[in-house]
C-alpha cells in the first residue's frame, strides 16, 4: 500500500443516553452507569421489548444559531441528534469559529438509515385513505390523504439528511456521503472519511453516525427481527454483552461525530490531538439466515485488514472495543473471531462493550462506541461494563467490569457488524509525532 498522509482525531461529539458532553459521558462510563431504561418518549406497551438507551432532555436548539432554528422543523430525531454531535465535535476541535478553515476541503461522512415518519404526520392521511367499509383505497389516498401531509415530508426522512444538514449548517463544501449499512455503518463511514483525507480530497472530515430507534415502527421492526432482550423489569441490567446471561439486543439512539484531520493540518493550527486513526478494514460474508449467526471469518478479515492498514501488531492492542450487542449468537460469533485472531491472548485482552451503557443505536452504535473508546484511550482508563457479572464460558472473554481498569497499551481495535454479515473495523492509537 502506498504511503499516505496520517490522520488524527481532534474533536469528539456525542449525543447519547448518558448525556451530551464528552466530560459528563466519560464520568458516567467510568462509573459503569447504564443509560438504558423503559422507553419514555412514547408508550411502549404492546412491544415485547420496552426498554432502550433513550436520549432524554436533548434540545437541538442549543446547538444552532437563532437564525438556523427554522431548519430544525424539517429534521427528524436522527438528524436533530446528528447536528448536535457535529456541533460539539467542531467546538471540541476548535473549528467552530476557525476563520482559516478551507470549506472546500472540509466534508462530512455519516452512517444513517431510512428514517421512520413520525406517526402524527401520517395518521390523518391514513384515516382519510380508508373508505366507509374500512377498506384502504389508493384512490382516496390520492384524492384526500396527500393534502394532509407536510410539503417537505419526504426530505425529513431521507438517510442523507444528517450529512446534508451538517454541511449546510457549517458550510462544509467538501466530500459528503451517507453510509447505510445498519450496525456496520459508522466504522464504514469513518473509514471512508479516513481515506478521503489520506488521498488528499479533504483536510478535515466530520465523520460519525446517527440513528434513533425510539419510534414505534422502528421498535416493532427490531422486535420482529428477533433476538431482542425482553428483560423489561430490570432495564439497566438488560444489556449484558458476553455475559452468561446475555439475552438479546437492547435498542438505543444517539449520534456521535469525530473531527478527523490531516496530521499536518492539525499540527499547523496547534490542535489538541486525541489519537491517530490508523487503520480501516471491511469484509462481508452474507449469512444464510440473517439472524446474527454470521461467519466469524468475516469479522476476522475486517479486523486483520484494519490492523494491516495501520501496520499494527496484535500486541500493540490494549483493548477491544467490540460490537458486543448481547445477542447470544452475535456475541459467540464475535468471541470466536477474537479467539481466532488473537489466539491465546484473546482471553486475557480487556474487552469493553459500550452497548451495556448505550444500548444499540443501529447505524450510530459504532460512532458512539468509538467516541467512548477514544475517551478511554485519552484518559488511559477502561470503563467497566454497566451490567456484566459472569462470563459466558462459550465466549471466554475478559470483559472489564466492577470498576475502571488502567489501560496498559496505547491502541485499540473497534469492530462492528450487522446481522447479515457486513463487518468493518478500525484501529486507533495514541498519537506520536514523527
Amino acid at each position: 500500500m502506498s504511503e499516505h498522509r496520517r490522520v488524527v482525531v481532534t474533536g469528539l461529539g456525542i449525543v447519547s443516553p448518558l448525556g451530551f458532553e464528552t466530560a459528563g459521558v466519560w464520568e458516567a462510563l467510568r462509573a459503569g452507569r447504564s443509560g438504558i431504561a423503559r422507553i419514555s418518549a412514547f408508550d411502549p406497551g404492546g412491544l415485547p421489548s420496552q426498554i432502550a438507551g433513550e436520549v432524554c432532555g436533548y434540545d437541538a436548539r442549543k446547538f444552532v444559531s437563532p437564525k438556523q432554528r427554522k431548519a430544525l422543523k424539517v429534521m427528524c430525531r436522527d438528524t436533530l441528534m446528528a447536528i448536535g454531535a457535529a456541533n460539539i465535535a467542531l467546538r471540541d476541535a476548535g473549528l467552530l469559529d476557525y476563520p482559516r478553515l478551507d470549506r472546500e476541503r472540509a466534508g462530512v461522512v455519516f452512517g444513517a438509515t431510512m428514517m421512520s415518519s413520525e406517526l402524527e404526520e401520517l395518521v390523518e392521511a391514513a384515516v382519510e385513505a380508508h373508505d366507509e367499509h374500512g377498506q384502504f383505497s389508493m384512490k382516496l389516498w390520492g384524492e384526500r390523504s396527500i393534502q394532509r401531509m407536510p410539503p417537505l415530508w419526504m426530505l425529513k426522512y431521507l438517510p442523507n439528511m444528517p450529512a446534508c444538514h451538517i454541511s449546510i449548517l457549517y458550510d462544509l463544501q467538501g466530500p459528503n456521503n451517507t453510509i447505510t449499512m445498519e450496525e456496520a455503518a459508522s466504522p464504514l463511514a469513518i473509514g471512508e472519511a479516513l481515506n478521503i483525507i489520506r488521498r488528499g480530497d479533504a483536510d478535515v472530515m466530520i465523520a460519525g453516525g446517527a440513528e434513533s430507534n425510539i419510534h414505534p415502527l422502528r421498535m416493532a421492526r427490531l422486535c420482529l427481527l428477533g433476538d431482542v432482550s425482553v428483560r423489561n423489569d430490570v432495564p439497566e441490567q438488560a444489556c449484558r454483552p458476553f455475559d452468561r446471561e446475555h439475552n438479546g439486543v437492547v435498542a438505543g439512539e444517539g449520534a456521535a461525530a469525530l473531527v478527523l484531520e490531516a496530521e499536518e493540518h492539525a499540527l499547523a493550527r496547534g490542535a489538541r490531538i486525541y489519537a491517530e486513526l490508523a487503520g480501516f478494514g471491511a469484509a462481508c460474508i452474507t449469512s444464510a439466515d440473517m439472524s446474527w449467526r454470521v461467519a466469524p471469518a468475516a469479522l476476522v478479515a475486517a479486523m486483520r485488514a484494519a490492523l494491516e492498514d495501520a501496520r499494527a501488531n496484535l500486541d500493540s492492542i490494549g483493548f477491544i472495543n467490540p460490537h458486543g450487542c448481547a445477542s447470544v449468537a452475535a456475541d459467540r460469533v464475535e468471541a470466536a473471531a477474537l479467539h481466532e485472531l488473537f489466539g491465546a491472548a484473546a482471553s486475557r485482552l480487556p474487552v469493553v462493550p459500550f452497548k451495556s451503557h448505550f444500548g444499540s443505536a443501529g447505524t450510530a452504535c459504532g460512532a458512539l462506541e468509538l467516541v467512548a473508546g477514544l475517551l478511554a484511550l485519552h484518559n488511559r482508563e477502561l470503563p467497566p461494563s454497566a451490567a456484566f457479572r459472569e462470563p459466558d464460558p462459550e465466549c471466554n472473554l475478559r470483559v472489564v467490569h466492577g470498576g475502571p481498569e488502567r489501560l496498559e497499551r496505547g491502541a485499540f481495535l473497534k469492530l462492528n457488524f450487522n446481522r447479515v454479515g457486513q463487518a468493518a473495523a478500525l484501529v486507533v492509537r495514541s498519537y506520536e509525532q514523527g
Partner: protein
Amino acid sequence: MAVHRRRVVVTGMAMVTPLGGNLEETWAAAVAGRSGVGYITRFDASTLPTRIAAEVKNFSLADYVAEASRYEECGLNTKLALAAASMALDHSGLDMDREDPYRVGVYLGAGEGHQDFETFMRLLRRAYRDGLIDVPVFNAGAVAELSARNELEQSPNMAAAHVAGFVGAYGPNSNCLTACAASNQAIGEAVELLRMGYADVMLSGGAHSMIHPLGVTGFNLLTALSTRNDEPQKASRPFDLHRDGFVLGEGAGIVVLEELEHAKRRGARIYAEVLGYGLSADAFRLTDPHEDGRGAVQAMQHALRDAGLDLSAIQYINAHGTSTREGDTVETLAIKKVFGEHAYRIPVSSTKSMMGHLIAAAGVVEFIICVLVIRDGVIPPTINLETPDPECDLDYVPNQAREARVDIALSNSFGFGGQNACVIVGRYAGN
C-alpha cells in the same frame, strides 16, 4: 495526487432499465431515442398528481438467476441489483473459483425495499382514536401483522449484502445513499478502494425503485415530478423550455471495476478506464442547488484534477439533466463555468429524457452509457428537446443520436440535499 496510483478499469457492465432488460437492449433503445415512460402500473396512481413513471417492464428475477425463489421476499431494488450483478459477472468473465474472495468487494448506491404500505396504513387507522394515536395499539398491531422478513429487506444495506452473497464476494462491502448521486459516488469510492489496495475487484453501481405510493407522494409534495400525465413519453424533457419536473424511473446497473494488472493477468476484456472522480457538497439548501452551481463546478473540477486532464480532453458529458426547471439551468451554468468556451463544443446529453430518473441507480446507468459511447462511437440523444430554453444553450444532442468518436467522457450526478459526484471514464489506452 499519488505518484504510483493503481489504475482501475471496467471489465464488466450490466443494467436493467425502463428501456430494456439488459445492457444491449437498453443501449439500442437509447440510441434509437425511445422513451420508457408510461402510466404507473405498480399501484393505483390514478388520483395522484403524477400518474406516470418509467417502469422496468415484465421483470422477473427468474429470467436472470437460478434459484430466484431464494430471493422472493427481497425488495424490488435488491432483485434488480441481483439481475444486473449476475449479468455483469458473466460479462466480465470473472471466475470466482479462481479469485481470492476477500479481494472481491461490493460498493453500491442502492435504495430501500418496498414498505408494506397498506398494512402500515391499516395499523395507523386502527390506532387512531379521538384525534390521538393509541400507540400500544399500533405497537401490538405492527408486531402481529408486519412481516419480519419484509421489514428486514427494506433496509438499504440489503442489496449490497445479497449481491455479495450471490457473487461470493467477501471483500469490503458498503452502500451509500446520497439521493440522486448515490451510485456515481459508489463507483467513485469503489475506485478509491481499488486504488488504495483494499481489493482487486469491486462490483459497484446501484439499484432503486421509488415507484411506490410514498415515493410518488413524497416527490409530488415537493412538486419535483412532472405532471404531464396526458403525454407520458413527452414528460421527461431535460433542457427544454417547457420542462416541468422529473419523471421517476427505476432499475439497476452494476459494473465490474478491476485493478488494471489484475485484469491483464486474467486476460480480461477491458471496456474503459476510470480516470477521475470528484465530489463536493453544495452546502446550500435542502431542496435547491446552489444558484451559481458552486457544488457542481467543484465536483467537475475535482474530477478533472483527479484525472490529470485538461478540460479540453472531455468529449462527451452525460448530464445529470433531470428535467427540473432549476436543476437543468444550474447544471448548464456549471458546465459553462468549468469548460468556458469549450462547453459549446462538448455534446451534452441527458438519457433521463428516455429512462426517467433512476434516483440512486441513475449514476451507474449513466456511467455505463458513457462507456458504451466510447465503445460504439455514438452519442444517445436528449429526446423531447423541442423548444430550446434560452438559459440552456449547450449542444444537448437533441432528439437524434449522433456518431462521434469519444475517448473521454464525464458523467455528472447531483443529489437532493447537495451531494455532487462526477466520474470521468476514458478509452483504455494500454500503457
